[in-house]
């Protein structure tokens, strides 16, 4: 039974990855880019699912981790010559981890809504810093840079074309998914879920709950930062808009629409949201958030399991 479940999982995973590998070869440039972005936003959403879905902490501050990942990558690409992809990754992750450590230290002192509010405020702190520290961050205009080559000295050296970037993003996102999935099934992941269900009880059986929460926030921030680095590579700029809280809000929306506590759900949610936005914005230009917000509210009220949970129930019937 369990083995059968595993086979189904890996078959499904392989099929989807294969489809995504083939995607840039058949899609137009516009849709190729669209799919790459869904993967990146999906990774961001997945990273926050570790907190929202598995630990029961709603973060309204993931834009800070995402944005700092972008700015970290930008710093590496602008200051180091020749630009190096791996250093960009490294800088981005370090920046995101530093921010995550700071946010984790303060916000995990509070629970539930207080946590949500505090993460929101912290992301705004970083937004204000980046927005006003023009000399370093370029302020409102942000920073623009060139895409580095995908190279390992002595082994290979590729120019990062859009298609190759898509594959690179796909590899990172798929790998991150597998790692995150394993983390949620690990003993550590079980502790997180136990905190979500009953924090006092988890403490009573001997767990130092605060420490687990801090590590959870840091892990989540690290993967959000990774998404930020990928986004920087894709768009070749870093801008304060991405540190702004609206990005955090959309991350939460992806999770809720897709279904929290599933890892895949948030990616589905991101795809659904972005497709709907694409469709709606043709008629409604910039006001697409009116119907999307309404859909989101309806899902919160009527479909708390999200699309994935809803589909699962529907398939079972």
């Amino acid at each position, binding site marked *: 039974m369990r083995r059968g479940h595993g086979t189904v999982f890996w078959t499904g995973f392989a099929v989807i990855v294969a489809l995504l590998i083939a995607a840039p070869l058949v899609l137009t440039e516009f849709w190729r880019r669209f799919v790459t972005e869904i993967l990146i936003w999906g990774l961001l959403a997945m990273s926050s699912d570790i907190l929202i879905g598995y630990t029961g902490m709603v973060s309204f501050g993931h834009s800070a981790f995402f944005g700092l990942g972008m700015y970290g990558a930008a710093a590496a690409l602008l200051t180091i010559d020749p630009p190096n992809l791996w250093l960009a990754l490294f800088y981005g992750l370090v920046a995101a981890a530093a921010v995550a450590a700071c946010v984790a230290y303060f916000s995990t002192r509070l629970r539930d809504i207080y946590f949500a509010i505090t993460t929101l405020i912290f992301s705004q702190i970083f937004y204000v810093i980046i927005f006003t520290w023009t000399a370093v961050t370029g302020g409102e205009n942000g920073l623009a840079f060139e895409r580095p080559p995908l190279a390992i000295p002595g082994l290979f050296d590729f120019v990062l074309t859009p298609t190759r970037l898509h594959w690179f993003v796909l590899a990172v996102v798929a790998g991150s998914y597998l790692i995150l999935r394993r983390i949620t099934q690990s003993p550590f992941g079980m502790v997180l879920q136990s905190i979500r269900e009953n924090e006092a009880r988890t403490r009573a059986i001997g767990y130092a709950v605060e420490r687990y929460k801090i590590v959870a926030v840091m892990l989540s921030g690290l993967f959000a930062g990774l998404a930020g680095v990928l986004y920087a590579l894709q768009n070749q700029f870093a801008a304060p808009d991405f540190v702004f809280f609206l990005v955090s809000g959309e991350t939460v929306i992806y999770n809720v629409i897709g279904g929290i506590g599933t890892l895949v759900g948030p990616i589905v949610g991101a795809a659904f949201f972005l497709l709907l936005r694409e469709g709606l914005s043709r008629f409604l230009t910039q*006001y697409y958030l009116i119907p999307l917000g309404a859909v989101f509210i309806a899902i919160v009220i009527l479909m708390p399991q999200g699309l994935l949970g809803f589909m699962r129930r529907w398939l079972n019937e």
Partner: protein
Amino acid sequence: MGVPLDQLLIQTINGIVTGMILALVSSGLTLIFGIMDVVNFAHGELLMLGAYVGVLTLAATGNFWLALLSAGLLIGLLGAAIYLVTLRPLIDRGPLTTILATFGISLVLQNVALWQFGPVSRKVAEPIGGHFTLFYLDYPWYRIVVALLSAAIIGGFWLFLKFGTWGIWIRATTQDRVMAQAMGIPVPWVLTGVFAIGSAMAAASGVLFGPLSGVDPTMGLGWILRAFIVVVVGGMGSLGGSIAAAILVSLLEAYASLWVSPSQAIIVSFVVLIVTLLFRPTGLFVAAPK
């Protein structure tokens, strides 16, 4: 570096004026949270819509008091409607669900405003003209009026809570919802009413603040952010704490803007918040837990 006393005094007055508006905004937020565990993310958008209703009424009638009244009534009704449609079904689903729902509402309201009123900030003439001389400045009377009106609304609300039958019902419901209902209080209506009152307070602060900074669809976010800081610093659900924290935060920001730009001055509030979280995570102005 020395700061001249006159500047300090001007900033004190400025701080108290914005502090009173912020107190009005935060009271509504904290009232709603205290009674139904709902953190109303859309509170800032209700403020913004209130400001627009005020602008439109003022343009049509020229009567500031009518603007204040109509904004309070209309947005109060809107708040009641929002509560009945979106929050009532969520009543037992916990505060995290309601923060998600109200976040969705804030997105919708903000974009409706953007669609209806456009992104450009509308300047509003101060409805009560006249200046008085404060050192070298012509200080507008309107600002003083704003502070006094905010204080009056908060004070009136406090009296209502303290002595009115509905006030007792609201406080009883806040303390023990189930028992309140078992004592015959129509709790579903009290909750709807409180949401309407909180919304009306947000709307009133929007109308008052509009002439000071202009009115635009995104003005709600800045306010909700500061109101969040205030309620965490003041202690969530504590009305007195919110008011004290609102004035503290606004004063500090006003003093800070002597040295840095206003957009950076908000960092002072962030610092206050961080210090609060470090030493008194339950809030500065509530009794420390046992």
